[in-house]
């Protein structure tokens, strides 16, 4: 589903954020990316989204080499890869329903389908009946659910989350993890960067540890393994 071949990313300021990274993530996997701050986790994610162009090496997403992908084709890559961020990134002047419908309008989904699918996805992430709320009327956990709903509404084969629980308390974080696990069980490949030791240790999923841009560890059933 995602394959890095000897990928190096050197930023213009000379920082080596990814250093000859080779890794293969299969369809349906749930993978944590851990590592100290500045290890290159976010850069790894941005490389999959083609938000940054890598300096050398190749990246394949859904059997397509994205390193040589034309700028104009990038939107179509993004439709295959849902993203969730630490800060939710919702539109404050749109309701929950509109925030999600917005992602479907962009791909040209007919209104009929939008009206049908948004309530279904709201049920899936546990936000039944909250469609008419505005983001500032929701808790952090609920806002993150909206953001997750938006990221999977177009049925992408891959979901990427960069510290999705970074702004949430432990209980709420677990609620979010349950939602992600449900989505993963429906067949979506999930890639999640995190600093949350407890979650990584309890979930018992594959763990890729980055340090100084290099893969320090890659365990099929791993633990967080840092003291921070």
């Amino acid at each position: 589903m995602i394959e890095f071949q000897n990928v190096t990313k050197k930023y213009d300021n000379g920082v080596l954020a990814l250093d000859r990274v080779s890794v293969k993530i299969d369809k349906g996997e749930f993978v944590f990316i851990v590592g100290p701050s500045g290890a290159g986790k976010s850069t790894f994610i941005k490389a999959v989204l083609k938000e940054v162009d890598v300096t050398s090496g190749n990246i394949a997403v859904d059997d397509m080499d994205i390193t040589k992908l034309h700028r104009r084709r990038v939107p179509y890559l993004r439709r295959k890869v849902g993203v969730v961020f630490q800060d939710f990134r919702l539109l404050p002047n749109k309701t929950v329903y509109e925030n999600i419908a917005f992602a479907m309008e962009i791909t040209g989904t007919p209104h009929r389908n939008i009206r049908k699918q948004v309530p279904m996805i709201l049920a899936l992430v546990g936000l039944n009946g909250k469609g008419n709320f505005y983001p500032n009327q929701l808790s952090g956990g609920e806002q993150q659910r909206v953001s997750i709903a938006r990221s999977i509404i177009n049925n992408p084969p891959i979901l990427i989350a960069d510290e999705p629980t970074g702004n949430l308390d432990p209980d709420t974080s677990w609620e979010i993890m349950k939602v992600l696990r449900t989505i993963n069980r429906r067949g979506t490949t999930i890639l999640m960067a995190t600093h949350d030791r407890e979650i990584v240790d309890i979930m018992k999923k594959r763990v890729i540890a980055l340090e100084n841009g290099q893969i320090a560890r890659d365990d099929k059933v791993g633990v967080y393994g840092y003291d921070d």
Partner: protein
Amino acid sequence: MMIKPVFTLKEAFKNLWRNRLMSIASISSVSATLLILGIIFALILNINAMAQSAKDQFDSIQVYLRDDLSSEEVIALQDKIKGVEGVSDVVYESKSDALKRMKESWQDNAYLLEGLESNPLPSSLIVYLSDIYYSSSVLNEVQKLDGIEEIKSYQDIVEQLLSITEGIRKTGIIVIFVLIAISTFIIHNTIKLTVNSRRREINIMKYVGATNWFIRWPFLAEGTMLGLIGAGISALAMKFAYDYVFELMHSDFYVLVSAYVIPPTDLMKDVLFLFLVIGAGIGALGSIWSMRKYLNV
């Protein structure tokens, strides 16, 4: 792709209203640019038309005679000119002939001449050349003769008019180019305000896979609308100004030039088309420019 035109237009108006000061600045600059373009355009077309009608009479020189010449003197003069090399014919035109000819050429506007108390036109000899090639040498010879009030060689006029048009065209192109650049820049700044206020939305759109054109379209609508409003205003201003000048030209004072002025309806069709196209172009260019930075995510 889902585009909701009515919704987009409403949204665009709302954004333009929110930044109304900048919107007014944009519209004014487009109007001013187009108005100046229109004036230059009208000048060039009119002078060209004058040059063209003068050119039709290229192969003749008009020699206006002093009022005090007797008919014998006129005939003598006519014979002398006939003798000059390169002259094919010399025809006498009396004062009343001249007035009659003018009335004919003015057709619908001939009534304007009815008000004249005395015939202001001089009698003249029209000298036809066997070839344009002789025009300056014939001119030289005729100038030496007696009894002549003034000589009108159309060659000079045509050359002068053409050089004036050339001058206007050259400076006009530079002036217009600069003005268009300024207008585009002002629209660019206006649209940048809305783009900035919706940066977040654009960013999210990029992440959920919106194509650049999907994102650009509403802003493009906004910029184009500014350009078109500007075009409309300048077209109106141009129409009133040109009608006014046209009327003025037809007052007794300028009666001699007015026959060459292009009628407002003919000119305004071209002007309106030109304005709408350039106005929309400036608006579209300005808005696409203002989005460049945000689309490279």
